């Protein structure tokens, strides 16, 4: 925190409405007991009110009810009248402490030498704008990228970030979609034409595969856990025995990055035993015959060897999934952070198809109806296909990632941020020189932290827009204090469930993301694209289509005349064989191959599989370490490992150890537990002082989605140096 005056402030609000001890003691000798009595009674009750809002710290969007005294949140509870029926987790509880944290940024900061100086907003916006215009002049508009983080996921402001980029002239907008959920969404859409939402509540068998909803989606924990407690089946597939796995009917402690093989193996058993839904497969799928060749080699014995699972468990799971349906499968990032992410989720989706569980109650719901998606439109959930007048002119340049991951670009219409470091350092595909971070901290959360740090130094302009000074903010040229989602003046009515109702005004001199974005647009001379005062006003403006892209119309074939679509795909059916994948040069059928870089006991240098990134309950990625009530749950980073692994490495529970990968080394404490698969080391991500992404890199990516290999790296454990 070199020179950041913002952090050197006394804790706020300890006793705003209370008499301080010193005042009391001063009063006593002079005025005697009468005065003391008056002082004890305090200066009168503060103005207190209750407001409801939506917690958008995660996508659970739980209703909250806050008690507010004199524009300070003093207490937050779940709102029993909301859809979440009163549920909130520790993050919602901590909203008060997040909003009023003494660590919040107060004023815009400008880097001067090695330290920051506070500057006024107008100066900050003008200086950033003039540097951006200079960069545009020298390198072209595509030299700017705008990247948004978890804090903005699902927020309608994304349409306007895209609008900002297009009006500046750059195609490079990126989001957490570069490494979160998109590989699954692409895989499901390539297969069914839509994202698949597990319908756990009505399923007879629920499968939670590479996910830990209790930690990452707490609001849904009960729905998932109820599968086990209601006497239905719950299968958990995870290299960590999570709390949910403890409750499960069947826990498969799988070797990471063998999930694709397991899915193919489950299909092998199901088809061999004739348990698949023949009518459904015949009526609604294409490519079943071709699949049979693929699954042939994935017999249970082979798959048991690949996955480290007992053969009997594989067969048992296959029969349960097929016979005791409807089966819904919740897939998580545990399947997506590998170099075969998209194909793995495709295999799981096809497994559901064989069992007749797609677009079926108790299986998976498909939010996109047949015929609803227009050719060439980006996938749902990211950007609306419409924008208000005037539409910014089309952009000739293609976003970063277009050449390497054309399908990712076609589906998402955004840049693949995992290639930013390369673009900055090697000017491939073209120079990237300016990066605006909206609530993102890539130096901690993106793969290849060491390389990204070097890249950050080479940037001509790095701007961090965040309520807190993050690791990425510390190396930025400008840091702009953003209000949290719970702040704003005057409080407008909630525009969408995802745009929360503010509880209190912007803290200190922070501004809402909307105010910052439009302020920047105006400073750049793009104000005519942002004529609205508020986001609400902007969302209400009439809209016209703007995302149509003739090139991507190729994503869909036309149905033959007279043919009726059952699924929103090109063929109108579930595509076991994907012609889209084929056209883009990928394997049109699901498959599984050994990873090119494999850990194992035969490797003296890296005998262990590195699993980085699983979320604990405490933090959301790199957020909230400044909040004491949250930090109490997880005061420091740990590396989970099996007792046998620890024994071999000479590590004891709680001891400081080092985890070393080909890319770097971090030191943290060992958490020795039989819950972790013996071949793995599970390292939490998000800590700037033991940054798991120093162990990862940006070179190995899933060829279809560009997703990083967070959960199947290689590593070893050795004693700490200190």
């Amino acid at each position, binding site marked *: 925190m070199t020179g950041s005056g913002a952090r050197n402030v*006394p*804790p706020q609000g*300890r*006793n705003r409405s*209370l*008499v*301080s*001890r*010193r005042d*009391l*003691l*001063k009063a*006593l*000798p002079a005025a005697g*007991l009468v005065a003391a009595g008056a002082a*004890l009674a305090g200066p009168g009750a503060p103005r207190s009110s209750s407001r409801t809002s939506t917690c958008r710290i995660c996508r659970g969007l739980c209703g909250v009810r806050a008690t507010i005294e004199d524009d300070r949140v003093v*207490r937050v*509870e*779940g709102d*029993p009248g909301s859809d*979440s*029926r*009163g*549920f*909130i*987790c*520790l993050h919602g*509880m901590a909203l008060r*402490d997040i909003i009023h944290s003494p660590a919040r940024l107060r004023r815009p900061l400008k880097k001067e030498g090695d330290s920051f100086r506070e500057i006024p907003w107008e100066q900050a916006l003008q200086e950033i704008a003039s540097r951006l215009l200079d960069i545009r002049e020298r390198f072209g508009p595509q030299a700017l990228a705008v990247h948004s983080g978890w804090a903005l996921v699902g927020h309608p402001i994304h349409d306007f970030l895209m609008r900002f980029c297009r009006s500046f002239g750059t195609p490079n907008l990126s989001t957490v979609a570069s490494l979160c959920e998109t590989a699954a969404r692409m895989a499901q859409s390539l297969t069914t034409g839509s994202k698949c939402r597990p319908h756990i509540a009505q399923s007879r068998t629920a499968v939670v595969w590479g996910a830990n909803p209790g930690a990452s989606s*707490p*609001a849904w*924990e*009960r729905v998932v*856990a*109820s599968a086990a*407690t*209601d006497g239905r089946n719950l299968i958990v597939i995870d290299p960590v025995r999570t*709390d949910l796995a403890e409750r499960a009917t069947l826990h498969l402690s799988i070797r990471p990055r063998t999930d694709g093989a397991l899915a193919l193996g489950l299909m092998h058993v199901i088809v061999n035993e004739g348990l698949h839904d023949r009518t459904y497969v015949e009526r609604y799928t294409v490519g079943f015959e071709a699949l049979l060749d693929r699954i042939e080699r994935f017999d249970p014995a082979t798959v048991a060897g690949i996955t480290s699972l007992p053969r009997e468990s594989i067969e048992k799971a296959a029969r349960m999934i097929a016979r005791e349906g409807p089966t819904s499968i919740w897939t998580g990032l545990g399947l997506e952070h590998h170099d075969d992410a998209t194909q793995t989720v495709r295999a799981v989706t096809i497994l559901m198809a064989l069992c007749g569980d797609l677009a079926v109650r108790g299986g998976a719901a498909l939010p996109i109806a047949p015929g609803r998606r227009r050719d060439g439109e980006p996938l749902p959930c990211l950007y609306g296909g419409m924008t208000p007048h005037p539409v910014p002119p089309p952009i000739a340049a293609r976003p970063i990632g277009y050449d390497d991951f054309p399908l990712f670009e076609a589906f998402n219409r955004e840049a693949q941020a995992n290639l930013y470091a390369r673009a900055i350092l090697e000017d491939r595909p073209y120079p990237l020189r300016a990066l605006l971070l909206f609530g993102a901290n890539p130096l901690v959360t993106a793969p290849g932290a060491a390389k990204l740090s070097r890249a950050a130094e080479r940037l001509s302009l790095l701007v961090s827009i965040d309520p807190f000074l993050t690791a990425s903010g510390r190396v930025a040229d400008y840091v702009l204090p953003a209000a949290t989602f719970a702040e704003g003046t005057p409080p407008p009515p909630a525009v969408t469930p995802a745009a929360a109702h503010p509880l209190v005004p912007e803290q200190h001199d922070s501004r809402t993301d909307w105010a910052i974005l439009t302020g920047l647009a105006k400073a750049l001379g793009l104000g005519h694209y942002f004529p609205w005062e508020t986001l609400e006003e902007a969302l209400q403006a009439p809209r016209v289509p703007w995302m149509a892209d003739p090139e991507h119309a190729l994503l869909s074939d036309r149905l033959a005349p007279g043919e009726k679509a059952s699924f929103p795909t090109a063929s109108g059916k579930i595509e076991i064989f994907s012609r889209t994948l084929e056209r883009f040069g990928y394997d049109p059928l699901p498959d599984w191959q050994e990873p090119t870089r494999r850990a194992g006991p035969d490797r003296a240098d890296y005998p262990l599989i590195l699993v980085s990134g699983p979320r604990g*309950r405490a933090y959301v990625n790199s957020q909230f370490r400044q909040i*004491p*009530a949250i*930090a*109490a*749950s*997880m*005061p*420091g980073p740990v590396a989970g490992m099996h007792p046998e692994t620890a024994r071999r490495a000479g590590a004891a*529970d*709680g001891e400081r150890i080092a985890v070393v990968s080909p890319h770097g080394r971090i030191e943290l404490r060992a958490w020795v537990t039989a819950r972790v698969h013996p071949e793995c080391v599970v390292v939490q991500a998000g800590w700037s002082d033991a940054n798991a992404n120093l162990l990862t890199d940006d070179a190995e990516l899933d060829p279809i989605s560009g997703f990083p290999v967070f959960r199947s790296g290689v590593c070893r454990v050795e004693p700490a140096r200190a």
Partner: protein
Amino acid sequence: MSDGGKRLPPITRRGLLVGGVALGGGVLSLISPPPAARLRPPGALDEPDFTRRCIRCLRCAEVCPPGAIRFATSFGMAGSDTPYIEARSRPCTLCMRCTQVCPSGALAPIDADRTVVGAKVRMGHPRLDRQKCIAWQESGECRACYYVCPYAGAAVRLDGRQLGPVFDREACVGCGQCEEACPEAALAITIDPRNGAPS
């Protein structure tokens, strides 16, 4: 806050000592209210050793990041100005800084390591009234105590179809996060101070 207790801003100790000496104990002890059992900061000695050892220097409150440590102003020197925590409005976040700055040994120093804290700290013991608990009564969706618990899984786990909380008296450190989190409509959780003795 019903008892007139206060959270403290960072203030100089010298000013306090001057005030304290000037006031003396005599006059103020005349109006002592009856003391009540209180949750002490982590590492506190048993009563009455704690009250005897504490020199009322306020350092524990000064370093407390959430401002959880308060001082009673009971006007009776016996219990006056010894630190306590009112979990309902601001519980302990287990950073152990108070134990490390305590100059008198009234709070025994404890390493901030999670395992050490889990083993050594016993500020109080949780008591759950299932009749009031939203999860057990299925009157809404609530697992707030479980989610805020720094030792969730050990000190409190979820049980039954309702996923209702079940506390482990022995594993709980008594920080009070759950008592604060328990919704106003329920108030089903109380941390009974370990000492149970008057402060």
